[in-house]
């Protein structure tokens, strides 16, 4: 262990950042953690990292402990949107600025945090839906969509579902015929897709809330004797390496990126916030979408 934690900037002139991560529940999250750790080291920031194991209680505990340790800046990726006012107020009273990453909170009092840095899950869903509107062959009749949701009750699942539904509402021929939770895992995606394939004679489109479920579903589709990417159009979110590979191989059709690499931006913000500079209230990570052709191009220099 590292023995000096009472120090603020005064001690060694180094900026201390307390960061509370949601957990390590996916490859995406791990990439996110690595990005933050690496860029902290690169930026000369002392990082206090805490892993909350997907529990809000743990994150609140961690923030309280950061306050006790008098870190200079606190950053965290909230597990859920609501429920942060009390502890954020404590941080505010202790004079420690807070940056939200990856996901916002729903506090009415916007002064509780300085800024938000992250992706917009609703937008990811919407981009997926919009691509489908533009590319689906709806002229020949209704298009049957099945949806693999993330963990029931989790924010990305709720928002991607919402964004996607909003987008496809524009075309009444696009119909979600089945929607189940695959828990964001490959095994879950596969198991659910197997049943979708047996229960629905005609499936035209699969929308999976992350790459992993999509990859699991691929296996089920192949086993059912269908050709992924052709017989069934597959849209996913995230763009992790395996997903991009599948996209490049023509098994997926479209991926809305959700970038985990927000470390450099975060370190930048932390320095600014600590120096008392004004920062925009909301900063979205630079994200894009990938089609098959784009994926082939991008694949060689993907980091994660």
């Amino acid at each position, binding site marked *: *262990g*590292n*023995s*000096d*934690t*009472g120090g603020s900037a005064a001690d060694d002139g180094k900026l201390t950042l*307390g960061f509370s*991560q949601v*957990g*390590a529940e996916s490859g995406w999250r*791990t990439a996110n*953690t690595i990005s933050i750790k690496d860029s902290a080291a690169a930026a000369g920031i002392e*990082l*206090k*990292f*805490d*892993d909350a*194991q*997907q*529990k*809000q*209680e*743990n994150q*609140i*505990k*961690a923030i*309280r*402990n*950061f306050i*006790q*340790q*008098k870190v200079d800046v606190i950053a965290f990726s909230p597990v*859920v*949107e*609501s*429920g*942060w*006012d*009390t502890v954020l*107020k404590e941080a505010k*009273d202790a004079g420690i600025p807070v940056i939200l990453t990856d996901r916002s909170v*729903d506090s*009415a009092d916007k002064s509780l945090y300085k800024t938000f840095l992250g992706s917009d899950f609703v937008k990811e869903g919407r981009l997926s839906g919009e691509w489908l509107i533009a590319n689906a062959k709806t002229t020949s009749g209704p298009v049957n969509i099945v949806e693999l949701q993330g*963990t*029931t*009750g*989790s*924010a990305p*699942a*709720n928002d991607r579902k919402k964004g996607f539904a909003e987008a496809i509402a524009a075309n009444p021929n696009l119909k979600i015929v089945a929607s189940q939770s695959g828990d964001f895992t490959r095994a879950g995606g596969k198991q659910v897709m197997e049943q979708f394939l047996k229960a629905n004679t005609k499936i035209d489109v699969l929308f999976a809330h992350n790459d992993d479920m999509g990859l699991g579903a691929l296996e089920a589709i192949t086993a059912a004797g269908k050709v992924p990417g052709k017989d069934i159009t597959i849209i996913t979110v995230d763009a992790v390496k395996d997903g991009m590979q599948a996209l490049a191989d023509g098994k997926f059709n479209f991926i809305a990126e959700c970038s985990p690499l927000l470390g450099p931006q975060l370190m930048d913000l932390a320095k600014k916030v600590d120096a008392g500079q004004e920062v925009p209230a909301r900063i979205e990570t630079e994200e894009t979408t990938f089609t098959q052709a784009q994926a082939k191009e991008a694949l060689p220099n993907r980091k994660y």
Partner: protein
Amino acid sequence: MTTGSLTAGRRWTARLPRRQVPVLATLALLLVMYGIGVSQYRAFSNVQVIFNVFIDNGFLLVVAVGMTFVILTGGIDLSVGSVVAMTAMVSAALLQQGLPAALVLVIALAIGPTLGLLMGCAIHFFEIQPFIVTLAGMFFARGMCTFISGSSIPITDGFWTRMSQERIGDPRGNFVSISVLIAFVVVVVAAYTLAYTRLGRNVYAIGGNSQSALLMGLPVGRTRIAVYTISGLCSAIGGILLSFYTLSGAPLIGVGMELDVIAAVVIGGTVLTGGSGYVFGTVLGVLVLGVIQTLITFDGSLNSWWTKIVIGGLLFAFILLQRLIGIRYK
């Protein structure tokens, strides 16, 4: 024929230490762990760090107290985590509907014990194993959470906000939350119940040997149903405290909490097969988990997976020492 003293004393000589040793050992180890924290991290010695352990684990403590009752009878209650979440969820949803805070409190506090009562009845009357009944209760309560809402519901009610943000003590320095006081009241009431009421003593008797308890004419069924109801009530109180704590109801909060709670109770010296243990031990158990968590946050250099490994390792070291000290004194 000689009568006199026919019975030559008891098997073991010194009594007092033997019974208290596990609890004392746990307390000592906890202090050692705290000492390590203080020596390693300067800010650890702040009094507020201790207060935070209580603030952050108040609801866990209340739930663990309820679990202590159940485990003392030799049963188990897996539904607690979900019931906590459901209570918070129901409170949040009702408050969102605009119901008055007092009414919401009453409703929310009634749901847990009702579910506990039903589970207790199923366990007693139909002789189904507690594990399975409370597992179904766990599914049910968690299902209700997602059924009520797929996403978290914020609470903006004035009463809740006050309960959440009121700082008792020096608001700028060291303070505790109201939840901590409530948790303490629950602990004291529970300790009193177990030590001084018939219900409490019956709990121990059933845990010792439920068939004997039955033949001794004790109300086994009633007591067994009561402990699950009590556990339900404690979960409900825990749920309310959690909703104070987070000012929201989230469908996935408290997943896996039952294991933390059981761990806390067992680390506190209560035997899983029932019949022996104290509420005070449970308090220690919760503190052990809390301090481990705090140590890890203070370290701040651990990776996600190393966090888990270190938690496991600390737990192991703690239990091993606890056990070795316990054996020595036996």
